[in-house]
């Protein structure tokens, strides 16, 4: 998605020489559009009278992916209400600003049957309601697609519902705690000012009663998340931060209630509720930051999950979501299409690109009986697959088995905050008990008063700053990473990343882009490329696409025939013009040099055939990033399933000294285990099915958003885009975050060291407690915010 901000132009006409819809350069001067997709989108927008879109958008639109796009299996997703209103929820990709929202909503509302269309820009979902049959869904979706947006199905029973409910509960608790904290503080301030002498005992007790009236229901309602977590920890025989929090809040409320009964001078209602309020803020932000990252990750996965074409027994083809396809069904895979499901080839001979699955860049031949896996790309001829259950001693089954073994072997990582809590809780509770005993038996105080002092110790040590120290930093860090296109899925990923000293990269799709790119050739003439591209633009074959990409937008030759397994043919005035494999243009099938990628030959009558060589090239900034990581002291290794020649060439180009080629999934796991056994903390970066087990076996793992489902699910973080820089950014943010967390923890402990003696001596009045707790929390939050400020400086 291009987010390059443009001047907000009042004139909707773009600069000459650029496309009227997407703003990219047009192939020939004088033309208005760069491609038919943009022309179609423009025509539709104009026809609906929505030209205002061009004046309103503040970012350039995307080039429409394909005007027709994959047909989604929508009719099954439509929900029909009792009164005949149909509703549908979809994920929309390509939204850049409010103008896109306006355009989609207006375009849909202009369709007769639509009663309501609403796009949520934050979650990128479209909710659509219309009167009429469920079969209108496809047509409405096509309208949006013609405008240049990609759509994906949205499962209504999505698994994010408990997450969402939890977030809402936290928000409600936070609002109520905030209301109570402010109102109780209002009453407490009057009591504190009254201590100077002007307030009578009756008024003070009235204030205390009012505070109790607000505080007790608040504690009962808002502290439930803490009580639940504390109980769960205690049941498991562990202790976490929530144990002292729950104990402190409960004790403070009960002792204050006792004091109120006794017409006492001090009540800690304000402290207890303020503590809850601060902690709930931290917890809510934490949950929302992770919820956002997770929903963004789901969004990416859903967009990649295109429906598969299923052939019914009666010979008709339907589209179904991969999860809805039954075992034993027959599935069609067109040329250039990604295989959406695991199966066995039942008919057809073709070549498949298995790079996502095995890391191998050479296309592999397949014939009836061969196993293919989701993620492979069918290259040369249409295939029919019989869907099989995953299992039965196949590659996938082996990977699942390896992943299970790896997860068992991976010791449960204990978050820093929990380790601190484990040591902190007993110390604090012993101190409070010691205070109580010392005041009762050594100083001869009445037990009620001693208990009051002991509770004051618990309140002042209630780990407000300590409990905020880690989440505050994590929220700021994950927000900064999210802006940079990195989705942090695991709560402890940052802590684990900060400890990493060895980075293991996969090759295909990770260090490289995982797609063929035309290699530059000095002997080739530009005219040959342009002429070959005319043919190539007519095909969906990955090599044709690479050729067309290298040539840029331009005209398409008419009458191109695609001959499966061979190439493209066009009848020219002097004979056939061909673009395809070596034998197709009449050359002998010669032996290929090791490490050479795929090639295309272009032959015209009466001319020497021209060769186009392709290779899966490294990401543009890979060498720079690897160099930077090595300079920062990381040990970098390359583990690939590809053949040695290709791997060696890439490793040499990027300056990676340690590399291994031809490693199978078990080999990758074994190498990671070896590294971990030698004491290294390993970050695994990989994208393929063959990396999934290694991702689960590493200390922490990252995968690009182009990775297969199983790899993205196994990874702790996912990064988007064609650059490798996010990996370096992720590591540097994690180190900075760790530094801030340690500073925060240090400060909280220092605060406790100063405050505890005061409380033990019996000087911690509610006023002192309120000031100490809120100021320490603010210091911790302020320190965490430094992480985002530095990011802004770096950007500007």
């Amino acid at each position, binding site marked *: 998605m291009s987010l390059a901000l443009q001047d907000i132009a009042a004139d*909707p006409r773009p600069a000459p020489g650029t496309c009227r819809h997407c703003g990219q350069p047009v192939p020939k001067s004088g033309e208005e559009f760069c491609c038919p997709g943009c022309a179609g989108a423009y025509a539709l927008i*104009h026809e*609906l*009278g*929505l*030209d*205002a879109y061009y*004046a*309103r958008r503040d970012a350039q639109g995307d080039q429409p992916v394909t005007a027709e796009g994959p047909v989604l299996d929508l009719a099954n997703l439509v929900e029909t209400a009792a009164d005949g209103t149909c509703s549908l929820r979809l994920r929309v990709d390509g939204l850049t*600003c*409010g*103008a896109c*929202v*306006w355009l989609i*909503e*207006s375009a849909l*509302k*202009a*369709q*007769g049957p639509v009663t309501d269309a609403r*796009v*949520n*820009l*934050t*979650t990128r979902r479209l909710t659509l309601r219309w009167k009429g049959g469920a079969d209108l869904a496809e047509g409405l979706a096509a309208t949006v697609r013609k405008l240049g947006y990609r759509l994906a199905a949205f499962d209504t029973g999505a698994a994010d519902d408990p997450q969402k409910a939890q977030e*809402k509960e936290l*928000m*409600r608790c936070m*609002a*109520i705690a905030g*209301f109570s904290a*402010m*109102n109780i503080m*209002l*009453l407490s301030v009057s009591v504190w000012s009254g201590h100077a002498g002007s307030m009578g005992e009756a*008024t003070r007790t*009235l204030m205390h009663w*009012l505070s109790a009236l*607000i505080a007790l229901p608040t504690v009962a309602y808002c502290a439930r998340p803490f009580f639940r977590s504390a109980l769960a920890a205690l049941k498991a025989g562990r202790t976490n931060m929530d144990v002292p929090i729950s104990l402190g809040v409960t004790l403070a409320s009960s002792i204050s209630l006792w004091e109120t009964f006794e017409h006492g001078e001090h009540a800690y209602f304000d402290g207890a509720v303020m503590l809850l309020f601060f902690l709930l803020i931290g917890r809510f932000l934490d949950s929302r930051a992770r919820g956002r990252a997770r929903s963004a990750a789901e969004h990416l996965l859903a967009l990649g999950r295109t429906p598969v074409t299923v052939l019914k027994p009666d010979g008709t083809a339907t589209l179904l979501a991969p999860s809805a396809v039954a075992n034993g069904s027959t599935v069609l895979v067109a040329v250039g299409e990604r295989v959406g499901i695991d199966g066995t080839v039942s008919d057809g001979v073709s070549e498949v690109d298995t790079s996502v699955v095995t890391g191998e860049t050479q296309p592999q031949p397949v014939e009836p009986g061969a196993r293919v896996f989701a993620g492979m790309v069918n290259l040369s001829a249409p295939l029919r697959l019989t869907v099989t259950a995953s299992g039965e001693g196949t590659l996938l089954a082996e990977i699942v088995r390896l992943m299970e073994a790896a997860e068992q072997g991976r010791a449960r990582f204990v978050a820093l905050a929990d380790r601190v809590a484990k040591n902190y809780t007993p110390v604090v509770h012993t101190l409070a008990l010691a205070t109580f005993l010392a005041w009762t038996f050594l100083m001869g105080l009445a037990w009620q008063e001693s208990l009051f002092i002991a509770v004051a110790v618990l309140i002042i040590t209630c780990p407000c700053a300590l409990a905020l120290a880690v989440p505050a930093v994590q929220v700021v860090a994950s927000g900064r990473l999210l802006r940079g296109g990195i989705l942090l899925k695991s709560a402890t990923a940052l802590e684990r990343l900060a400890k990493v000293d060895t980075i293991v990269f996969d090759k295909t799709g990770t260090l490289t882009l995982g797609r063929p790119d035309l290699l530059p050739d000095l002997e080739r003439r530009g005219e040959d490329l342009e002429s070959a591209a005319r043919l190539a633009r007519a095909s969906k074959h990955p090599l044709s696409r690479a050729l067309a990409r290298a040539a840029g937008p331009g005209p398409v030759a008419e009458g191109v025939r695609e001959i499966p397994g061979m190439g493209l043919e066009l009848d020219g005035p002097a004979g056939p013009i061909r673009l395809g494999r070596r034998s197709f243009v009449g050359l002998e099938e010669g032996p290929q040099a090791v490490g050479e990628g795929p090639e295309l030959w272009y032959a015209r009558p009466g001319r020497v055939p021209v060769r186009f060589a392709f290779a899966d090239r490294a990401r543009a900034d890979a060498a720079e990033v690897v160099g930077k990581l090595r300079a920062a002291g990381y040990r970098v290794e390359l583990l690939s399933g590809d053949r040695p020649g290709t791997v060696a060439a890439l490793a040499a180009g990027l300056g990676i000294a340690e590399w291994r080629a031809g490693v199978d999934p078990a080999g990758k796991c074994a190498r990671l285990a070896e590294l971990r056994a030698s004491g290294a903390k390993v970050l695994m970066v990989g994208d393929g099915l063959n990396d999934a087990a290694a991702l689960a076996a590493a200390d922490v793992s990252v995968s690009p958003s182009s990775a297969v489902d199983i790899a993205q699910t196994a990874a702790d973080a996912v990064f988007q885009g064609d650059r490798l820089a996010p990996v370096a950014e992720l590591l540097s943010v994690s180190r900075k975050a760790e530094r801030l967390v340690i500073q925060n923890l240090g400060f909280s402990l220092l605060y406790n060291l100063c405050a505890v003696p005061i409380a033990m001596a019996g000087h911690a009045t509610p006023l002192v407690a309120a000031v100490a707790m809120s100021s320490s929390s603010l210091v911790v939050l302020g320190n965490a915010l430094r992480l985002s400020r530095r990011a802004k400086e770096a950007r500007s």
Partner: protein
Amino acid sequence: MTILLLLIPVALGLGFLGLIAFLWSVRTGQFEDLDGAATRILFDDGKPLPPGQKSQA
């Protein structure tokens, strides 16, 4: 000090109203799309155009 009997309920009542308003806005989904709301406010002609009608930017 009898004024307190009036002022405290008033203060609490106003705060409570604010709380109810907030909870209501959460329940009705007004916090679901903060980014969208920020830009929607700029588009004053939110009414859909009748089908087929030509431009009027």
